[in-house]
């Protein structure tokens, strides 16, 4: 057993209201600079929708992630070792700016400088890259709330395998439905971006698993941009370096939650440490699609198990981190309750950001003047929810419904249980039957309810001590670096010499 610790995340989609506060917080802190205008390390997508960059989930187009080759070995889909040499001058699967959007501002100066005339001066949209006038046609959240639209919703790659009736059900007037999918870097256990970097500039931090790009080692070979199936590494067109979400490590190191987590209005985000067995990584990443979710879960170790604790200590994991892992909200959602699922695990990067799938509204119709619920029961059957199970399974279960059904059934049972407890218009026996059917107990249901609905800041973010002070002491002469800003390097990043 080779125990490692990983700062992991849960996004509770049932609580996301799609307000983009997370995106704005991140933008203001990290990507509001030249070359990074188009980057949204955190973005929020409407599902069904095409997302950002457009159709990022379409791996026939972008060739992100891993694939199993003929002899059962894992291979980078885009440019692995054999393919990088002939393709280093021109990356064959790289998205270009147009796949994201042209970042724009407005020509406000014109409002002051325009010559006197009979018309009011206007501030035309201009490109933030070359200053040319742009016809604004797309943006990072251009499909926002456009569930049912023929341009966006109907082109969602996750609609594959859905029956025509299910597709119709997703988009028909007065019944259409959508939910939100906030996305940041998943800080995967088997990241393709790291594996694909010809310079070895990308790396995973051993102590907390955060995936970073060494800006001094990046040479703009662009492999990581193509290789990441989630399209969460971005190319800075000005500095000629790739960049990505850093999970706000300077904040984490000072005990603060990342900006997007901290600012989340719906309180959907949870952060905590998971201990996992790194020896099983390769074996797990090669399993068939339908076994991946369970297998990844089995890699996550019980932080209260004495053998795990002993192995963790042997690997130099500090007591503080182990203690933090024992209180991790992520561990409870992912491992104890089994209701948080990795996105698109079929890409085989083993993402460490998990989503609690959303409960969608009841199916209803309006044959006359009043709305009729299609279900007689108080909380509808999950199989007749408006978002087809297959759609959620394509997102969170590698196309297999089992794990999604389990997560939704448990969430539904929690609702029955709490209704019986607090309102009492549901009889206790029915609620208990629901709980049993969903593999849940009253205590567990209460715990899920508390961590979902009543969670405080401290409940949601259990940040481990990062012990950065040790790293700096061991690697640097403190006196030599006392004038530095604390991280990064002196002098702003600029292009070339």
């Amino acid at each position, binding site marked *: 057993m080779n125990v490692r610790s990983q700062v992991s995340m849960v996004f509770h989609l049932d609580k996301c209201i799609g307000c983009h506060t997370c995106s704005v917080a991140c933008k203001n802190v990290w990507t509001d600079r030249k070359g990074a205008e188009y980057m949204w390390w955190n973005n929020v997508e409407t599902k069904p929708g095409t997302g950002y960059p457009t159709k990022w989930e379409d791996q026939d187009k972008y060739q992100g992630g891993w694939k199993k080759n003929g002899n059962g070995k894992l291979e980078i889909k885009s440019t692995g070792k054999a393919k990088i040499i002939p393709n280093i001058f021109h990356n064959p699967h790289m998205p270009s700016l147009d796949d994201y959007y042209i970042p724009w501002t407005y020509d406000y100066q014109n409002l002051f400088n325009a010559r006197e005339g009979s018309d009011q001066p206007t501030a035309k949209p201009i490109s933030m890259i*070359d200053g040319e006038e742009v016809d604004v046609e797309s943006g990072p959240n251009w499909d926002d709330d456009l569930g049912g639209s023929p341009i966006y919703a109907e082109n969602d790659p996750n609609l594959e395998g859905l029956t025509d009736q299910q597709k119709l059900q997703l988009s028909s007037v007065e019944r259409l439905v959508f939910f939100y999918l906030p996305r940041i870097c998943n800080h995967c256990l088997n990241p393709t971006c790291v594996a694909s*970097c010809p310079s070895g500039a990308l790396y995973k931090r051993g102590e907390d698993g955060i995936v970073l790009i060494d800006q001094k080692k990046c040479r*703009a070979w662009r492999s990581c941009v193509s290789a990441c199936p989630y399209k969460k590494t971005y190319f800075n067109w000005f500095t000629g370096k790739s960049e990505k979400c850093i999970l706000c490590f300077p904040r984490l190191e000072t005990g603060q939650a990342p900006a997007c987590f901290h600012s989340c209005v719906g309180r959907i985000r949870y952060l905590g440490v998971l201990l996992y067995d790194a020896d099983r990584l390769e074996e797990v990443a090669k399993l068939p699609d339908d076994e991946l979710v369970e297998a990844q879960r089995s890699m996550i170790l019980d932080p209260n198990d004495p053998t795990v604790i002993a192995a963790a200590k042997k690997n130099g994991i500090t007591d503080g981190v182990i203690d933090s892992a024992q209180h991790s909200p992520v561990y409870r959602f992912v491992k104890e309750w089994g209701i948080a699922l990795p996105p698109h695990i079929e890409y085989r990067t083993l993402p460490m950001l998990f989503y609690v799938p959303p409960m969608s509204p009841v199916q209803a119709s309006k044959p006359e003047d009043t709305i009729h619920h299609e279900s007689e029961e108080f909380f509808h059957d999950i199989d007749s929810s408006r978002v087809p199970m297959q759609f959620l399974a394509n997102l969170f279960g590698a196309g297999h419904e089992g794990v999604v059904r389990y997560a939704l059934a448990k969430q539904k049972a929690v609702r029955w249980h709490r209704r019986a407890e607090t309102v009492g218009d549901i009889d206790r026996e029915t609620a208990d039957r629901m709980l049993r059917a969903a593999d849940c107990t009253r205590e567990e249901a209460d715990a899920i309810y508390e961590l979902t609905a009543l969670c405080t800041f401290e409940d949601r973010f259990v940040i481990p001590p990062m012990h950065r002070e040790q790293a700096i002491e061991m690697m640097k002469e403190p006196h030599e670096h006392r004038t530095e800003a604390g991280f990064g390097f002196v002098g702003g990043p600029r292009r070339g010499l």
Partner: protein
Amino acid sequence: MDKSFFDQFLFVILPYLSLFTFFLMTVYRYRAQSFSYSSLSSQFLENEHHFWAVVPFHYGVLVITVGHLVAIFIPRSILLWNSHPLRLYILEISALAFGLLTLIGLVGIVIRRATTTRIRKVTSPTDWILFAMLLALVVSGVAMALLHPWGSSWFASNLTPYLWSIFKLNPDITYVTSMPALVKFHIVLAFLTVGFFPFTRLVHILVIPNPYLWRKPQVVRWYGKKQ
């Protein structure tokens, strides 16, 4: 000006200045400004013509550069190969072909940069000077292949000794001063480019990814372990 002094300047002083600048500045830049070592790819801003310009140029220039290095470091291999006329023709024709490939690619690169507004924004004055130098270098090279044939042989037999005399700090310019003007132009420009090299985007040649093919797929860094 005295002609011999002029030759001394072009073929002795300039090469030493260039080589000195090259070694000093590449090392200094790598140590002080390692962030600036980047290929500064523009594929992200323009992906349609990128392939047709960049790929021919790089493959062409790669083969031509390797050819020059072989002629400098193992000249006997070239002379031995060229001892048979048919093999000489094959070498000369392929050199010309790759030279033309480089030229086509380079012209493509310059046109692409000049005509795409987005890319013009990320093209510095240094880039334009470099493109002009490279263009002159490649055009003169291709012209030599056409006007002064069997360059592979006379390079290996006459210019290699000159270059080695420079490397050995015992410069002997007898061979080089008797060369046609076009050849002299090419040599002088080549040394200028070498001297200009550390100030340009060309430094990305020096950071080609060599450990990638041998390393494990995943990279992990730990506190307290030097990279």
